[in-house]
């Protein structure tokens, strides 16, 4: 990728209808284990449109992380059709089409916050002054511009995860993939980061796919919630949310929010077996 394409932000607005960012058709992913192959995802069909905020929710082992990793080309697809921005996941990864936020911040402890955020740009070969400017901009987006010279271990867990979000914004991606990014944080930090993330998503219009275990988190953030179930991993239901925008934490006490959360809990219960 040359510097020109790096500096030019990808188109970000949800104005074009039926603009599919992710298309999955009859997607199957099998894992080989010692005794027998396990079906991690079975016949998954999913369309994600530009500007969507999709939550993948379900019990452990339902393949929500596997689906996210397949989109990111971190896990190979066994069969079926998967397109990311109209490309194969592999080509999309090579084009650095997405930003990925892991369960843990995965910050490199020997680099300052600023140099952690510039890391992807360094690897892409961007000039030093450009990448520092870009990193400062992204750190400001997550509210950490005063912490750029700290080392990761000098920050709290929530701040570290915000740094990793700033880092994921490096390539100005039109697609943000997040794998339970706030799972390890306490509830108060999680609430505040949810508000942060909602604002960031509103401002950038980035298509976001968000893996979570938390019902309130999914309802608060999403435009659509994909409910999955385990053994084999599959999509059970897709719940549309028409909660008003922009959202603040107060929305959680409204009847509409409670009703949606109830629907979601019912759907999860349907898919849950206790074997």
């Amino acid at each position: 990728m040359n510097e020109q394409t790096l500096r030019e932000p990808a188109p970000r607005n949800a104005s074009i209808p039926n603009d599919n960012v992710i298309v999955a058709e009859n997607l199957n992913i099998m894992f080989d284990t010692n005794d027998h192959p396990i079906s991690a995802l079975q016949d998954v069909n999913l369309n994600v449109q530009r500007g969507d905020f999709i939550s993948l929710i379900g019990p452990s082992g339902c393949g929500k992380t596997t689906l996210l990793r397949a989109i990111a080309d971190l896990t190979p697809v066994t069969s079926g059709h998967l397109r990311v921005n109209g490309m194969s996941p592999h080509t999309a990864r090579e084009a650095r089409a997405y930003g990925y936020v892991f369960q843990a911040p995965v910050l490199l402890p020997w680099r300052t916050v600023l140099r952690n955020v510039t890391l992807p740009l360094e690897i892409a070969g961007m000039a030093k002054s450009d990448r520092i400017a870009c990193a400062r901009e992204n750190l400001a987006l997550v509210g950490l511009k005063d912490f750029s010279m700290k080392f990761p271990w000098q920050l709290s867990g929530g701040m570290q995860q915000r740094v990793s979000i700033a880092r994921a914004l490096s390539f100005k991606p039109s697609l943000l993939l997040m794998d339970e990014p706030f799972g390890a944080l306490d509830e108060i930090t999680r609430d505040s980061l949810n508000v942060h993330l909602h604002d960031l998503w509103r401002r950038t219009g980035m298509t976001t796919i968000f893996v979570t275990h938390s019902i309130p988190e999914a309802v608060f953030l999403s435009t659509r919630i994909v409910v999955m179930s385990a053994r084999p991993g599959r999509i059970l239901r897709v719940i549309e949310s028409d909660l008003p925008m922009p959202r603040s934490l107060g929305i959680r006490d409204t009847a509409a929010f409670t009703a949606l959360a109830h629907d979601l809990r019912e759907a999860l219960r349907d898919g849950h077996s206790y074997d």
Partner: protein
Amino acid sequence: MTRIFPLATVMLALIIVWYAGAYVLNAPQAINLMDPDGPHNFWAVVQAAWNMDRPVLPTPGQIATNLAASIFGNPLFSPRNFLLQTAYTAETAVTGLAGGVVLGIFLAIGIVHSRVLDRSLMPWVITSQTIPILAIAPMVVVALGNIGLTGLVPKAAIVGYLSFFPVTVGMVKGLRSPDAMQMDLMRTYNTKKMSLFVKLRWPVAMAFLFPSLRVAASLSVTGAIVAELPTGAQVGLGARLLAGSYYGQTMMMWGALVLASLLALALIGMVRLGEFWLCQQRGGRL
């Protein structure tokens, strides 16, 4: 203070045991050498045992005096000056150590990046250290001497043979230590092998490199001394040790021993300094 006190206590105990040992080991000869007409009480025997010209076990005081006499009583470039001998050994140790470290790092890089090298080379790396260095040193000296390489080169080769090993083992482990999530992270950036090495593998491995370097540094002095023995013991602390044992000059041997351990300490100190510097660069953690 809390660190110095225990160390000082042990040191004091060692010195007391040493002086007692010097009395026990030297007394029989000391009594033979004493003036038959002089006093033979306990204190006189102790004095004689602690002040022999060629004692079985010299006292720490004698060793220090002897060293000081050698260092300050001779011109700097006189072969009788222990500092010159130490410099020869240091030259061998540092040259060999540098070569060994470079070799060790390159071997580790090869082993980590190539399955073939991992399978074929790693067993030989481990086997290499099962051969006693004392057995292989004369052969290295003879073999390299036959192709016209004498002096520093064969000695440095022996040091390198000893010191590459901890570096290879440590760096193989270090270069492999990035965890799955770090590797996935780099994959999402479409990182090429070279960048992956520079940005992740190498910096992660630093925490493994420095402990390996400390081991390699102390081994390098051992290696340098062993390497000086079969070369005809012309120069260096190893030569002093050998000459001392030939001629029963225990004080010469102990002097060489003390300087050898000080040399090893200095080399380890230098590694520590490098470690400290890198630590500062990283905000206080390695």
